[in-house]
């Protein structure tokens, strides 16, 4: 075969292959697609074999084979990955009973579980396991041993519940880890690993959240104007095809009817001439009340933290006093949102707007609480740091005393005294472990409060409504308590903030991520059961339609906010002198400097020192700022171009409409142009006559070219939207060439051309 023939054949083969790849995108019948597929496959197989023979073609044949194998591998991998996704059945059941909005919470929960699982794997594999397997065992050095004074009570349940005793001196917390530069045979650099995993947690989460946001933004359909197609969307897209349950379907019917009626009424009546002043006053009042309660809750937390510091010095604490801080925080998170909702009744907004306000306020509440908690914690940390100074002196003194006293009983002066029993060494106040303990306690109490709320607020309520209904004066099911609805936004926010706490605390308590994984796992089963057993589908279903990205955006914000405290402590606070992997260093990140100096080859050290030079960093930052500015202005330019194109499309449509209806142009621009022309009969001939609209009764899907019209700016395509007007004048008699798209001139039984 000649070269030219080969090339042509290769092209054809490529085309067939492309057809095979895109065949599922065509809306044809299965039979037809099957026939085409088999034909294409045969062609490809026959000629690929031929192309693969002969000299110099071995490489081609090999490439073809590898591509086939790669495609098969990809497909198998996709199948495997889909099979691995857990809880598909459960979520599907929830979807069919409650619709896609409630199910979206569970999908979010599952996504979180996946992310936490990866974080847990990182932490466990790179930090906990090496310390357990290759590091020193419990009891060998002071930081790993329960001090003598506490040893009696170290195993008590109440002490363990407080995460003191054996819990405190275990792998769960920062203080356990040794600061040896390398451990074990493999020379594993634990301190470096600890720091890297801590920062890597944030890096991985950031990457994952942004990737998910980008994927969601793709599907969303970008820039549809909010009010553009309200009625059409209500008609065509409001039914949720995942619903498989009669009661949910009934609810959906009712809500669709209500929304139709409402929107019709909205169209008819304009702004009700209400008392604007009263409304404004009420709104200002509501906002004032809410700001007061936010401030109040912040102050309450600060007060409680101060009290807990005082409590730390006493010993005879009741259970309430010990857990006061966590209880108060969780209760605030429970009580304030309904309070905000009741106050918001004053404001009288449309439900969708009211929901946004509510979410914003709950967000502010959680954020305020968390940051107040953090500031109060920082106070505590600073106190501990001051304490450290004095304890350091005290422990060195005690060590000297011990050795001085020890040498007396032994006569043999050559023997070295055994080291002090680890239980006796005075330990510093290890502020990192204290912080870790606070976060763990907070998480645990949050879990307990959430589960209790579901149990009491939903389950007990459902039981009461169901069984007391027989002997109660009014109908409990329809009237006051009735069954609860699933609070999607509250739950999602709770999840987001829980994750924020985990991110903050994971650096000081590596075991926290493990606890969170367990929590998410049990939460999934528990909440699925609770939703199916005790909740009813929502009455008013209105989707906050871009809500997926809204919650992701919230998560991103919380990620940044929880990154700040951790990075601040790494950069500026000195680590404790006797506990944790960074003990003995000035700052935590010194471990990186050490690694660069000692482990990496010399030139890398000089490279890094050059890179850290301000003279290099400042231009880099400037460059990034310029890049942002440039991208911003390009995107603005694109938006302007879009607007122009839309306007042009609108103009073309109007022109066509006017032409069809034989009226004069209403467009001022066109009108001016027309007036300028010397001869009126030369008025716009530019637009070609429209082709027949495809109208085959069986709907054979060969005429789906119109599908591209929605996106294209092509004036030709636009014009083809116009129907064939039986009263059309001149254009219909023009040459068939202008309509030449292979479409039959028959159409709706119009027969021959109309008389001229």
């Amino acid at each position, binding site marked *: 075969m000649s070269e030219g023939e080969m090339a042509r054949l290769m092209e054809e083969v490529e085309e067939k292959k492309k057809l095979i790849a895109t065949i599922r995108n065509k809306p044809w019948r299965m039979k037809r697609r099957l026939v085409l597929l088999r034909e294409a496959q045969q062609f490809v197989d026959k000629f690929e074999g031929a192309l693969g023979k002969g000299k110099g073609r071995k490489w081609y044949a090999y490439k073809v084979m590898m591509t086939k194998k790669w495609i098969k591998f990809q497909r198998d991998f996709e199948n495997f990955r889909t099979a691995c996704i857990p809880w598909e059945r459960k979520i599907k059941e929830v979807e069919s009973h409650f619709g896609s909005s409630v199910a979206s919470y569970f999908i979010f929960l599952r996504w979180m579980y996946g992310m936490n699982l990866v974080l847990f794997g990182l932490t466990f594999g790179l930090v906990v396991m090496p310390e357990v397997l290759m590091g020193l065992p419990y009891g060998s050095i002071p930081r790993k041993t329960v001090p003598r004074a506490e040893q009696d009570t170290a195993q008590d349940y109440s002490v363990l519940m407080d995460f003191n005793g054996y819990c405190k001196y275990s792998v769960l917390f920062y203080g356990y880890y040794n600061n040896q530069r390398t451990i074990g045979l493999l020379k594993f650099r634990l301190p470096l690993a600890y720091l890297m995993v801590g920062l890597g947690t944030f890096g991985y989460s950031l990457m994952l959240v942004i990737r998910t946001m980008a994927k969601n933004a793709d599907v969303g359909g970008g820039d549809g104007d909010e009010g553009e197609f309200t009625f059409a969307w209500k008609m065509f897209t409001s039914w949720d095809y*995942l619903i*498989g349950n009669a009661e*949910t379907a009934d609810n959906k*019917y009712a809500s669709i009817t209500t929304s139709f009626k409402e929107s019709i009424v909205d169209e008819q009546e304009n702004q009700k001439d209400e008392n604007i002043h009263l409304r404004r006053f009420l709104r200002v009042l509501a906002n004032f009340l809410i700001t007061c309660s936010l401030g109040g809750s912040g102050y309450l937390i600060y007060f409680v933290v101060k009290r807990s510091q005082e409590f730390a010095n006493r010993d005879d604490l009741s259970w309430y006093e010990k857990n006061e801080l966590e209880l108060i925080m969780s209760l605030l998170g429970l009580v304030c949102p309904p309070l905000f909702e009741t106050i918001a009744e004053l404001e009288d907004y449309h439900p969708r707007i009211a929901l946004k306000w509510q979410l914003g306020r709950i967000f502010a509440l959680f954020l305020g609480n968390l940051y107040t908690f953090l500031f109060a914690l920082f106070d505590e940390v600073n106190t501990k740091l001051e304490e450290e100074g004095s304890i350091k002196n005290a422990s060195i003194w005690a060590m000297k005393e011990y050795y001085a006293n020890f040498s007396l009983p032994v006569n043999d002066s050559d023997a070295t005294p055994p080291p002090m029993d680890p239980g006796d060494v005075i330990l510093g106040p290890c502020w990192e472990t204290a912080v870790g303990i606070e976060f763990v306690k907070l998480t645990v109490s949050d879990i307990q409060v959430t589960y209790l709320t579901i149990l009491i607020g939903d389950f007990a309520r459902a039981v009461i409504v169901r069984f007391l209904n027989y002997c109660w004066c009014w109908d409990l099911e329809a009237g006051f308590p009735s069954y609860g609805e699933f609070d999607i936004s509250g739950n999602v926010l709770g999840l987001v903030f829980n994750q924020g706490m985990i991110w903050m605390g994971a650096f000081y308590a590596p075991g926290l991520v493990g606890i969170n994984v367990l929590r998410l796992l049990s939460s999934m089963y528990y909440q699925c059961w609770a939703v199916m057993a005790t909740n009813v589908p929502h009455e008013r279903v209105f989707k906050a339609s*871009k809500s997926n990205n809204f919650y992701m955006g919230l998560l991103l914000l919380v990620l940044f906010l929880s990154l700040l405290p951790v990075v601040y402590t790494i950069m500026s606070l000195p680590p404790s002198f006797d506990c944790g992997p960074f003990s003995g260093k000035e700052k935590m990140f010194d471990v990186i400097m050490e690694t660069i100096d000692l482990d990496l080859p010399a030139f890398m050290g000089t490279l890094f020192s050059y890179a850290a030079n301000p003279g290099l960093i400042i231009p880099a930052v400037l460059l990034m700022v310029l890049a942002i500015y440039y991208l911003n202005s390009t995107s603005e330019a694109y938006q302007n171009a879009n607007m122009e194109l839309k306007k042009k499309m609108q103009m073309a449509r109007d022109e066509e409409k006017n032409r069809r209806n034989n009226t004069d142009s209403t467009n001022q621009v066109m009108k001016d142009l027309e007036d300028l022309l010397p001869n009126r009969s030369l008025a716009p001939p530019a637009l070609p006559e429209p082709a027949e609209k495809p109208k085959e009764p069986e709907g054979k899907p060969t005429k789906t070219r*119109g599908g591209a019209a929605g996106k294209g700016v092509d004036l030709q*395509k636009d014009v083809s939207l116009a129907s064939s007007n039986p009263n059309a004048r001149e254009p219909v008699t023009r040459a068939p060439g202008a309509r030449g798209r292979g479409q039959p001139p028959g159409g709706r039984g119009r027969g021959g051309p109309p008389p001229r």
Partner: protein
Amino acid sequence: MGTTASQLDKGMLSEYQELTFLTKQEILLAYKRFSELLPKEETNGLSYRIPMNAILELPELKTNPFNKRICMVFSTSDSHDGSLSFDDFLDLLSAFSDSATLEIKSHYAFRIFDFDDDGTLGRQDLEKLVNCLTGGTVDTSLTPEEMKQLIDNILEESDIDKDGTVNLSEFQHVISRSPDFVSSFKIVL
């Protein structure tokens, strides 16, 4: 389960994977559910057509207001009785699957909403559509004035060439802007 899986041979399975948006597990599950609807004596599931009322018993389709239309649209039977063969069933699941493209979904949605199969959505089609969506009972349906107002509003929004009907391109233009459509137009077995 083992016997049904072996009836769907590997060649057909991989072809179906090429032709539809479904994964291998989804195709096998579809075959299992399809075979459950077959009458006992029928052994070759791939060529038998299941009548419409049996398909409508599936829980995923039972409560859907458009279930009959869906069966009619996807059916390739010559007698236009809405019966589905296995190929048609897979077509249905593929169009309603998670990974189907917007074009496929909007194409089929248009055909489902086109009650009289004339290639456009006229006033009668839209009226029937509204009645389906509001549940069809007397106390939930709209009054004639409200219906007229609603349909006028819809045509105002979507009918670009002002011919009183919504054709495929106009429909796709409207649907492509909607953020909800792809996620709600889904059926999963």
